[in-house]
């Protein structure tokens, strides 16, 4: 029998009636010590989930904006040891769900068990590891993640078959990350009919998990289009662009979130 931990992600979706906004940013970007304050400002501004990116040298699923933020964060000296140190005070400052997102290799080198322990210790609720295949997750990672109360978030795309979407739905109990189109992060500027019918199709499948739409959400219009048939949306590249030119993080983050959520 599967043990279901009721963590902050489940609580959020059980209680909210509004469309959920999840915001991605890269740890240690734009400055090495910005991680915690960016998360704090996001919560204060009204974001519902924060996704903290663990930078990697070769982020193949990411477009130029997030690649650049990964590079800068690594140049700033970010690594997992330091990230978990910065996050020691996470739960004194942030109460919304926090997800770590990144590529599998740094996690393997840190040690999967140790990584999950560190996540649990600082109060991380879930993980998005785009290059961890489902088969490997189920055989080698699932029980460790579960033991430490971590929800693994799977991606689906317009090319994902209905059967596979159902398998994804069966094997997670947080939310599903619905990639809006065949693209790397940040590549879209608006949504067409093809994407809208994909959002509708997935909505019509009546999955047990809520779905958040990501990739290509940059403003109020795309946020509304994406959430018309889903529980919420994820913003990444557009927020990274804001961070890279901001000289008043608190104020700019507040304006950004308010504009998206309306």
């Amino acid at each position, binding site marked *: 029998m599967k043990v279901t931990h009721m963590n902050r992600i489940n609580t959020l979706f059980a209680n909210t009636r509004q469309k959920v906004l999840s915001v991605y940013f890269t740890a240690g970007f734009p400055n090495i010590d910005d991680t915690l304050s960016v998360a704090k400002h996001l919560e204060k501004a009204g974001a519902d989930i924060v996704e903290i990116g663990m930078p990697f040298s*070769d982020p*193949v699923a990411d477009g130029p904006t997030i690649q650049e933020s990964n590079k800068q964060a690594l140049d700033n000296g970010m690594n997992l040891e330091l990230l978990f140190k910065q996050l020691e005070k996470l739960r004194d400052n942030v109460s919304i769900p926090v997800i770590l997102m990144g590529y599998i290799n740094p996690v393997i080198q840190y040690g999967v068990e140790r990584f999950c322990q560190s996540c649990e210790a600082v109060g991380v609720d879930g993980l998005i590891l785009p*290059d961890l295949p489902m088969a490997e997750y189920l055989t080698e990672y699932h029980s460790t993640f579960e033991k430490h109360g971590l929800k693994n978030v799977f991606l689906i795309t317009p090319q994902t078959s209905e059967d596979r979407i159902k398998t994804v739905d069966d094997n997670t109990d947080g939310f599903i990350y619905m990639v809006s189109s065949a693209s790397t992060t940040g590549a879209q500027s608006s949504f067409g009919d093809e994407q809208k019918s994909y959002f509708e199709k997935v909505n019509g499948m009546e999955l047990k998990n809520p779905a958040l739409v990501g990739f290509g959400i940059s403003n109020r219009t795309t946020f509304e289009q994406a959430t018309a048939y889903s529980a919420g949306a994820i913003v990444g590249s557009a927020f990274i662009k804001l961070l890279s030119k901001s000289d008043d993080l608190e104020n700019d983050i507040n304006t950004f979130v308010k504009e998206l959520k309306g």
Partner: protein
Amino acid sequence: MKYSVDENGYYGKFGGAYIPEMLYPNVEELKENYLSIIGSSDFKEEFDKLLRDYVGRPTPLFLAERLSQKYEAQIYLKREDLCHTGAHKVNNTIGQIILAKKLGKQKIIAETGAGQHGVATATVCALMGMECIVYMGKIDMERQRPNVERMRILGARVVPATSGSQTLKDATNEAMRHWINHPTDTHYIIGSVVGPHPYPDMVAKFQSVISEEIMNQLEAATGSPYPDYILACVGGGSNAAGAFYHFMDNEKVNLVAVEAAGHGVGSGESAATTALGKPGVLHGSKTLLMQTKDGQVVEPYSISAGLDYPGIGPIHAHLFDTGRVQFLNATDEEAMNAGIELSRQEGIIPAIESAHAFVALQKLDLTPNDTVVINLSGRGDKDLETYIQWGKY
């Protein structure tokens, strides 16, 4: 076969398909179809015909008498340098483009380091009338200028990879990103035994024509199909996988792989993955990988663009792990000297990649009765500028 890929796409603990979901349908489509397509009689017929009439196979197995005299062994060269386009890379691109056609794809993308795989891909795209985009590190474009122009003459678009170290690893990242953005009409021709399953197995199978021919030719020349040694250079490892393929299960054949040590294994400027790497995940497979303790991929160095890669095919990680293949390495200097030696002894200017394999002759304890086959994977025309700059000839 003991060293073959298993049903989950692993060689021992290495391999798999560590890809983002965006690539899953493409890779799954390949996985579901590659064995039946390449096993079909019309595929085989077209593949064999093109290898014979277009590539010029079988390539000769040449007894290098002066080199044999010098190193006191019977040294044969497998002349992959005589393939159309100048290297073994075309064996794989012929196979993959026929496969791509059978899958109904209209466009081809590829990554390239030294440019040999890019040229081989641009060549078969011209042959088949398919659109071709090749990603190449910006630095590699500068140091392999003639190959860039060859690709352009052949009608390919060469796109510089400007991220990271601007070499083969980054060109591969860019090609994967392109594939994510164009998942339905495009086939990605990976040039080595790297990437997610089924690529390593598929590329190894297309290159296995090398060892198949070696067996036949050696039997005709010596009465036995089995040499005592096979030597090959390894970057990602496609020529080595092809040269070792039919010999892997015969433990009497000593298989020797030579990696690029750059300025020396301990110098911080090297590409000797088995000496410096740890298990990790890059470009879709779990393999040995040069990386920091934090798991960030290290930028490798070698004078030879084709060996300048921080990983190694998962099949080679397994062959290293099990001890089946002996891994040596050669510095820039050793490889350049070996290249000049081959030029002087046998009248063959090798690719600098291939020259690394010849360094093993000095490092092995050979006896006069030993039969040694060296896979001469490519010719040195593309490296003329590097030879000239080296100057010591």
